[in-house]
């Protein structure tokens, strides 16, 4: 659906995006994971047609994405990183403006506004100015404001910043429902948990470079598996324990197996083996390898750095 080919974007001498190539398929929930200043928003703005790349091409359904291509913009929805709403106006007034700019009007627009406010639990605050909303409520409105015209591709730039866990969960569920209904989503975040929970595929970006790209498992598979895994020494686990010594060190004490894998043994392989012996995941405790660890491994720095 969306194709980026060797896209480079500079601000003066600063290279915000460096030779990024990326393909997003229809129906994907794609996560863009990277720390502050990685280039996530820049990538979003290029896709949204707000900026032009210095080199490379972007196409949506075969049509080039440029600032002049107004037609492609109606199939895009952008949730800006900032809360981009008119604070003096009410939620319906805000939505009316954004809907009208996409050519919606009349009863259709009203119906969509009502549905959108219901969907993010703001219907009972429809008479209040947006500036009186809590941060989480503003975030939710910021999100639905990009959806009134029913885009095919939704660009969510860190849509949950400053949102309490409950609101966050509401947003997640809403996005997951939209995705199930066929909406393609690009979701940028610097939270591991969000990318892990939501995204079918993840790109890890830092300093404008796409360091890794794949499903969660594919990404974790790239991480050398150096941690120690513990599991109880029971008859059920005996078969697994028997397989492990070829892949690393296995020590057993106090009815606990402690396994230290060799660097080339992947986490996914371990869990694959556990599954083949019908062992549930809760038996195993470890410092589970995370995207955090992967990021550290790939870039040599932590995400919050």
């Amino acid at each position, binding site marked *: 659906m969306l194709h980026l080919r060797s896209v480079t974007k500079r601000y003066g001498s600063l290279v915000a995006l460096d030779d990024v190539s990326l393909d997003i398929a229809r129906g994907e929930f794609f996560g863009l994971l990277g720390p502050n200043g990685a280039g996530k928003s820049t990538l979003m703005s290029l896709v*949204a047609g707000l900026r032009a790349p210095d080199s490379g091409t972007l196409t949506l359904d075969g049509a080039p994405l440029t600032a002049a291509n107004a037609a492609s*913009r109606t199939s895009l*929805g952008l949730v*800006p*990183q900032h809360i981009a709403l008119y604070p003096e*106006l009410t939620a319906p007034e805000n939505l009316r403006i954004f809907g009208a*700019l996409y*050519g919606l009007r009349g009863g259709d627009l009203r119906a969509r506004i009502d549905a959108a406010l219901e969907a993010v639990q703001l219907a009972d605050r429809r008479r209040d100015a947006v500036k009186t909303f809590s941060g989480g409520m503003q975030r939710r409105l910021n999100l639905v404001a990009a959806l009134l015209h029913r885009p095919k591709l939704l660009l969510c730039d860190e849509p949950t910043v400053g949102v309490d866990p409950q609101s966050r969960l509401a947003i997640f569920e809403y996005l997951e429902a939209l995705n199930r209904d066929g909406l393609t989503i690009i979701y940028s975040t610097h939270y591991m948990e969000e990318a892990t929970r939501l995204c079918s595929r993840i790109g890890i970006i830092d300093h404008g470079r796409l360091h890794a790209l794949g499903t969660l498992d594919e990404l974790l598979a790239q991480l050398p598996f150096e941690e120690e895994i513990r599991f109880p020494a029971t008859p059920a686990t005996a078969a697994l324990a028997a397989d492990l010594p070829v892949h690393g060190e296995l020590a057993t004490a106090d009815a606990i197996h402690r396994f230290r894998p060799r660097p080339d043994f992947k986490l996914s392989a371990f869990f694959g083996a556990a599954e083949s012996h019908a062992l549930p995941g809760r038996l195993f405790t470890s410092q589970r390898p995370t995207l955090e660890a992967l990021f550290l491994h790939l870039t040599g720095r932590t995400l919050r750095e």
Partner: protein
Amino acid sequence: MRSILVLLRKDFTNFLRNKAAVSLTFLIPFVMIWLFGIIFGVNKKDSGPNGIPLAVVNASDNPAAQKLVDALKTEKSFRVITEFVSPDKSRRPLTEADLRPLMQAPDAPFRFALVIPPDLVRTKDFGLHLKIFSNPRNEIETQTVNGILQKTIFTNVPQLLGESLQASAKDYLGSPAFKQFNGTIAGAVADAFGGDKEKIQQRIEAGDFGLGRVIGPAKPADPSLRRLDNNPTPAPAGSAQSTSASAAPAPAASNAAADTLARIVRLETVQVVGANVKSPAATSIVGGWAIQFLLFALSASATSLFRERDAGLFQRLLASPVTRAQILWSKFLYGVCLGIIQLMVLFFAGRVLFGIEIERHVGLLLIVCTFAASACTSFGMLLAAIAPNAEAAQGLATFLIMMMSSLGGAWFPITLMPVFIQQFSKLTLVYWSMEGFSSVLWAGQSFLQILPILGILAGITAVVMSIAIWRFNRGRIFE
């Protein structure tokens, strides 16, 4: 176009929600207009007028008339014009017939004229006959010019009054009886106070009653003219001010004398333009304050571009099928609409407060308001285009608006300013907007007559908007 209307509506809704903006646009200028209407003419902060062009036509062969002209020439408040310069650069003395066409011209070389008619000293009744022609831009100007004229006349021509007294007495008594009357008076004076009877009689016949020494400089009773007395600048040489020091009359006495003089000297004033306008001064008060606050309101609205940018709203707007140009034009259109509404509302308030007659000129007033609002809007857009952020834009706006308003004549008539500063007035859109208002409301000019002013306002708009758009396209406002 629909997008522009959506954005326009958005700006208006935002405006109406913002109480501070609404009161800045409507309430505060209304209060200012109202206040200035009340204190008008009293609260002048200027340092005294300078070089107001004054045409003088002297049709009298009385030597005292020439003395009056010379006195006016030394008066620093006036720049006396006595010659008519025809297009081929030849010169001849001005005549009364020259005055009207010259004063009614759009670029009138002078707005006030004094005519000394052949019958300066009247014989039928006691007093002097002078004619003042005026095409004033406002009441302060009229009062000021009249005041200074009166001062100059009263302090310089007591002799003329004596002459007038003599002439009317002669007319009444007949020449021989009159001579005898003068002789009797002179004898009585010589007997009572001493002195030579012959000399006294000569002086009486020449009209010299020593009036100048008794009265001293005129202290006009009109409170609006009192300022002139406080004027620290030294009186021109040859005025009666120097003699007043020796006489040192009590203020009350001199006021009474001035009152008497005011009754004796008949100043016939002819207002060349706008003679039947009810509240002429109100036009410039309303126009001036309205424009000034419109500028404030519009620069505030233009700097809201920064707020919209910082909030990421432009990203949202530009991600939808809206172009940068549409955003800018919607802002422009918004400014113009707001400006028209504000100006018309305030002129209507001027109608209620001061009886400005807007009904007869609604169409033309609307046109002038449109052009003035466009110029003001482009100014706001330029600020937003050149300033790096909202704070800088607001600071710059405040400075520039105060300067343009004072220079352009929104606070007090520009004729009260030094001539060299007056040259800068014409560089301000405030000046041209106010010219437009007074042309329509005051002078009752036609569309064709105000075309040059509209052209200038449109020119200002075009130039300023071009610079603004060029800067917008190069700047970061949309990034």
